[in-house]
Structure formats: structure tokens, C-alpha cells
């Protein structure tokens, strides 16, 4: 199943501010770019020598922050009532 179809299933109240705080100064040096493979919703994409970050489908798991070898990702929590709300979980 495509990730877009999957995310269509979930309930989001998207904030207008990106809660993923990423400093991309080390990304060129980063060999495997693990944020682009571990994120369960494909919020990180390497495109033309640049890290493209979306945050809309973020399910707030925190994996990207844990895997960044340069400690450049901080997953802050979306403010009150924003972000994902699981109906099952």
C-alpha cells in the first residue's frame, strides 16, 4: 500500500508550524541518511542533493531523531490538540 493511502486513514490536525526541527548542515556528509529510510511515513526525502522535509504525515514516533548520526533532528511535540490523533492505536 502506498504511504499516501495509508496516511489517508489517519486523523491529523495539522499545525501550520513544522514541529520537526532539522539542521541540515551535516546532511551532505551523512553517508546513509538514515532519516530517509527509517521514517514510517516518508517525511524525509533526499532530492537533488537536498533534504526535503515534510511534517504533515508525522505520526510522532521519534525514530528520525534517534537515528540521526549528527544529532541534527529534534522532534518537538505539536502544540495543544495538533498532530496525529489515533482512533485505535
Amino acid at each position: 500500500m502506498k504511504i499516501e493511502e495509508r496516511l489517508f486513514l489517519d486523523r491529523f490536525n495539522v499545525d501550520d508550524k513544522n514541529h520537526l526541527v532539522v539542521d541540515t548542515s551535516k546532511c551532505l556528509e551523512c553517508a546513509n541518511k538514515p532519516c530517509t529510510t527509517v521514517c514510517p511515513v516518508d517525511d524525509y526525502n533526499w532530492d537533488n542533493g537536498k533534504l526535503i522535509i515534510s511534517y504533515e504525515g508525522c505520526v510522532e514516533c521519534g525514530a528520525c531523531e534517534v537515528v540521526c548520526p549528527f544529532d541534527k533532528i529534534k522532534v518537538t511535540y505539536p502544540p495543544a490538540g495538533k498532530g496525529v490523533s489515533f482512533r485505535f492505536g
Partner: protein
Amino acid sequence: MDAEGKFDAIVVGAGPAGTTAALTMARGGMKVALLERGEYPGAKNVFGGVLYRWPLEEIIPKFWETAPLERQIVDHRFMVMSKDSGLLLSFKVDGRGKAPYNGYTAIRAKFDKWYASKAEEAGVTLATSAVVDDIIMKDGKVVGVRAGPGIENELYADLVIAADGVNSGLAVRAGLREPPSPDQVALGVKEVVELPAEAIEARFNLRKGEGTRMETMGCTHGKMGGGFVYTNANSLSVGVVILLSHLMELKMKPYELLDEFKAHPSIEPFIEGGKAKEYSAHLIPEAGYKGVPRLYRDGMMIAGDAAYLCSYPEGTNLAMASGMLAGKAALHAKKNNDFSAKTLSVYHEMMNESYVIKEMKRKDSSHTAMLNNPRIFGLYPDLINEILADVLHVNGETKTAKHKRAKSKFRDKVGLLRALRDAYSTRGMAP
């Protein structure tokens, strides 16, 4: 709350750990605020999963009569899979007239909400959509929390209990723990697949209301992890769990592993025709006893996943048990009107005597062994399936020849002594 509007204790996180701690303290007469960042308790939470009767029964006797539960687990299944085959073991008990059961499947968004409402009934003040950003320190002591900018978002109390889950920003800020490293946590991805109750009962050979939990291994490309299928009332919870450092090595997307799992010939017939209802992901502490941090400091304690107290698939029970002991330690501190680390150390003492720490120690014995052993999650499952496929295939070749081939395959690929060593070193993995 005293005259200045101060709470005795603030609990951060209305998951199983935090709600239990809050409930325990409120019943003992403390004024407790329970702060939850989700729109409702459970909104941000994910598990397999099975709720065990212990220790919830001690906290809410006969909870099964009122809690939103899905099915009573009477069937425990374990599957060892290769790419296209699977060996399934089912341990089934006679559930007729045997309620209460040992475990129930549950939906966290429903259960956590219900459980927090029990804490409210006991007098806890629950605030949802309350994102705690930081702890407030004074003279080396934790004195409150901050939930946004400005003093209007500061909340003070004698005690803060951080039950904010595996990513626990608060335990880290309090200096009790480091942020997780990729080999200390696993990532779980999960789908809820809707199916009519009758279809679930027919496919899993269950009576009405009975349920199956199924754990599988061999679906993670040799990496540490596994798959699961749990039966809910009208849906299945289907997921894959993999150690985060191993997922990084594998360079596969987590949902690709989930898609492979769902398409596996031994899994697909269970979910066929079902409608996907939700996709979720969550981290799971996998650090064993070694990873368990210091549990308290002046004015603060940590419980549940925040303290890495998880021994997958057991987690909610350990969270509740630690929350309960943290609550008891708080009552002891309240009685002595002293919330210093010295007084709160009773939490540590009670934990050491508890099932929680004993289970974490058991888990520890196998964790390192499994981390560095590619045989467990790849070679063995494949070999078992390969040998069975060969032996069960009737084609005119004698059974004797096939048994001989099986033995030599086993000898060449593993060896008896190594197999024994592996079996011993992974004993902590046994159910």
C-alpha cells in the same frame, strides 16, 4: 491543591504508567494533576496488543466488567517463518466459563481514555492537550513543569512523576537518562484491519468473544524483530517490530516490511478482504535491565517506558506496576512531608523487589546475545522451514535419505554446540 493552588504532585503522561501513579496517589488523599499532550488519553499511543490482568486487577478489581476490552486471549500462537512458508504453534486453553481471563486485546485510544476517567473519578485533575515542554528546577530540586511560554504555563508541585513514554524528554532533561540510541529501541509499525467478528472467529478457530495473539519471527530479513497479529472484536492489529539500529542497516522502509508481512502466505489469508482503518508507528524500549536508568531524584520519579521498563510484548503491565510503586513511594513521601531523593529511594527499593525489575533482568540476559547473533532471526527460521519443506514433500525419495540430509544441513549451517549455545544465550526470549 493547597491555598496557593499548588498540587501535591504532577504526573506527565496519561498512559498506563502515569494514570496508575495518579490514581494511586489520589486514592491516598494527594492532590494530583495529570497532564496529557494528546487530545484525549490514548490519542498518541500505540501497542500490539494485549493487556494482562496483572496488575490491573489489583488497581481496578473486576476491570473486565466495565473496561473497553476487545477479546479474551485463549489462543497463543507462535510462528517461525521463512520467505514463503511458516511453522505455526498454537497453545490453546479452554476459555469456556473461565473468565476472568489472563489477557485481553484492547484498543489504546479507548482503553487509555477509560482508564484515565477512573483516575478522574478518584479525584485526579486531568488536563488533555497539555504539552509539557520542560521541568522547572530550583536549588537542584524538581519543583514543577512548564507547558508553554510565560508564568501562566508554569505549574508547581512537591513532586513530578514523568510517565511520558519511551521518548521521555523529561527524564532526559532531569539528567536521569540519555536520549535513546538506535540499539536501545525498536520501531513498531502497525495497521488496524477491519473484519466482521464472525470472519475473525472462523479464521482463527475461536468461539464468540475469544481471541488469539500471534507472534512471529523470521519476517525481518534476519534482523532482530518479528511480526504480530492480534484479534480485536471487529478488527485485527497487524504489525512488524524491528530494532531501530537493524532497520538502519537493512535500509528498507518500515512499511515495506509490514507489506511483506501482510502478503506472506501464512498471514495473508487471515487479513484477506479486510479494510485498513489506521496506520501507526511507535518506539518500544529494548534496552533490557542495563538500560534502566536511575528512577528518582529530588522531587521527581520516572515510571513505565520513560524508564525503559518494557520487555516486549510486556509493557503496559510493567508500566502499571511501576506507576503503582511510584504512587506508593509518593504517599510515603507525603506522609513524611519530604520529597527528597533520600525519601523517594523507597521507590527504587520496592522496584528491586518487584516483578518489573526481575523481568527486566531476565530480558537483559538475552538482549546482547540476540543483538549480535544473525542466526536467531534469519538462519534458524529459514533452516527449520527448509528442512520441514523437504521432509514433508513426498516424492519417492526415502525418509531416511531426507532425515540424513536434514541432519547434515543442520550440522553444516549451525552445528550442535553452537545451536545449544544460541539456545542458552537466548533463553530470555522464551515466552
